[in-house]
């Protein structure tokens, strides 16, 4: 039995809990949230024990899974690494580059298993596209466009709306795409970005980011928390011998349309992409297997650092109006 402890019992904490419950060789031994009522409700729902303190949690788990808001990752990641625990940490690795550096150094010193949870790498459409591009399916990549977003995320205490806590749409949302791009196309030379992040608009954030890669490709990433039309992603990879595209709004495996209010109200449509395995499960399963076998996770702490570094460079560009060289 691999013993796991989850810290931060909001949306992602529950998502991760569901994934572990599907693993017969994993036991979520304890969970922790600084919000006592939330922790109790979670514990009741999943029949798990609430740890009394971080130390209590560390004492009873081999794997620590961090699902707190972004600005509160490092404060749990560092002591967990220090205690020699295997740590999986939600993306972005941390809110600041300094915190990221501390985490990287701690992982290096203690040589503990660590994985930033860039779950996009386990979404089959993104994973398949990555391998196709790497195998030369589109030839030399020239242009890449990616889009992600929907309406503004609402969470406990509305922390996404606080740039100091979440980093806005660039650090929180399109970091998924930035990590995929670094993974698939390699290093970025320059970044230039525009964003609504600093306009003081309530519950609206939007960004358009341009990237120039070391290999000569040009990238464009759109991130939106401005679109009431529902969460949508798409991407397009153009190369000198072909192009790959995916659009979640166009490729819909299952769609249900129903009338609200017992059949008298307006219609609601919900698209779905049913699959036997969910990406969060695959991601966490990969990490658990690495912990069990001593393998290195395929997403490294440096990957987590590089994604944050690129996102923060984009934010700096949006703030200063300059192109930022990396």
């Amino acid at each position, binding site marked *: 039995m691999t013993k796991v402890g989850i810290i931060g019992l909001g949306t992602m904490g529950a998502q991760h809990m569901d994934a572990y419950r599907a693993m017969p060789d994993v036991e979520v031994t304890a969970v922790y949230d600084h919000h006592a009522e939330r922790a109790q409700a979670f514990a009741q729902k999943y029949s798990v024990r609430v740890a009394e303190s971080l130390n209590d949690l560390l004492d009873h788990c081999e794997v620590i899974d961090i699902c707190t808001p972004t600005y509160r990752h490092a404060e749990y990641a560092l002591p967990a690494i220090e205690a020699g625990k295997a740590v999986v940490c939600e993306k972005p690795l941390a809110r600041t580059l300094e915190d990221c550096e501390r985490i990287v150094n701690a992982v290096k010193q203690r040589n503990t298993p660590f994985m930033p949870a860039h779950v996009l790498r386990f979404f089959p459409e993104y994973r398949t596209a990555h391998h196709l591009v790497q195998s030369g399916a589109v030839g030399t990549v*020239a242009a890449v466009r990616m889009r992600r977003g929907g309406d503004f995320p609402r969470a406990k205490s509305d922390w996404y709306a606080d740039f100091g806590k979440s980093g806005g749409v660039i650090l929180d949302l399109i970091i998924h795409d930035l990590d995929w791009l670094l993974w698939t196309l390699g290093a970025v030379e*320059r970044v230039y970005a*525009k964003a609504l992040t600093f306009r003081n608009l309530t519950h*609206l954030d939007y960004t*358009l980011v341009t*990237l120039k890669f070391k290999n000569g490709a*040009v990238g464009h990433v759109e991130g*939106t928390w401005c679109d009431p039309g529902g969460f949508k992603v798409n991407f397009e990879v153009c190369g*000198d011998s072909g192009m790959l595209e995916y659009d979640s709004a166009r490729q819909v495996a299952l769609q249900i349309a129903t009338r609200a209010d017992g059949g008298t109200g307006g219609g609601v449509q919900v698209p779905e992409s049913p699959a036997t395995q969910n990406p969060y499960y695959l991601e966490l399963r990969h990490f658990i297997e690495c912990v069990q076998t001593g393998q290195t996770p395929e997403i490294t702490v440096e990957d987590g650092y590089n994604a944050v570094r690129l996102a923060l460079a984009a934010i700096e560009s949006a703030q200063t109006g300059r*192109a930022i060289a990396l």
Partner: protein
Amino acid sequence: MKVKVGIMSFAHLHADSYAHCLKANPNAELVGIADHDSARAQAKAREFETQAFDSYESLLASDIQAVIICSENARHAPLVQMAAASGKHILCEKPLMTKLDDGKAMLAAAQGAGVQLFTAFPCRFSPAFQQMMRLIHAGAIGELLALRGTNRGSNPGGWFNDPELAGGGAMMDHTVHVADLMRRLTGHEIVEVYAETGNNMFHGAFDDTAMLTMTLQNGVFATLDSSWSRPKTFPTWGDVTLAAIGTRGVVEMDMFAQYLVYYDDRAGRVKQLFWGDHIDYLMVDEFLRVVAGAERQALATGEDGYRAAAVAIAGYESVKRREPVPVQA
């Protein structure tokens, strides 16, 4: 009374479309064609059942009232100046110019001669775009905050790959349509441009990939992908898309998403067959009416053409300097 029109040069492939529009329009008479490539003039004159003139001068000496100029980009300036000096109204293919000084000279020549100079921006005539404009002006998405556009295509080859004649590559070819739509939609000038280009599609001495970021006078920001990035197997020539992001919502336009999907076994390809309105026809039709004395409505002026081309020119400056640069008025 039919408006008598001549076409100066068929170097740009759009000349064919405009010639068809003239032939199909009951208010037009295609009087003749002149081209520095006289064999091309002969061939096109036969194709469109009109006269081939042996020089631009002789075409301009005829009784035509107006010309459509479809030369290589860098040759627009001398032809516009010639036509203006002959007192002909002008519809010039985009981009209006490849150098700011050329553009200024063209605007001055038209003004000095008292002729009207227009730029061929047919996208303004798209019913989808016009509806988008109405929606936004009626406040459907609240205050406009950002725009995201694309105008992708494939490499036309030939002189388009000669930066001397084309004034650049993909960015010069494909920036102006959507830059113009952004100006028209907002009523604001594009004041600053940042651009990245690449050549990983064709590995030539010209840009085939281009991504511009623009700031408008009113603070709205925008990006535009003007790459020749459509693969050979793409089901159509390319796209024109524009999304507007506002405080209350989003409008997304895909200008040519009015098509049948045609699985053509004989050609071994899938094609998109467009059935929407013919925007070149609508543009040429307004040009004819304006030449005949009607008031201009959607037709883009020489000044509009200048402003849009200045965005692409600023883009190349930005690529050189690796920083955002102001757009020259």
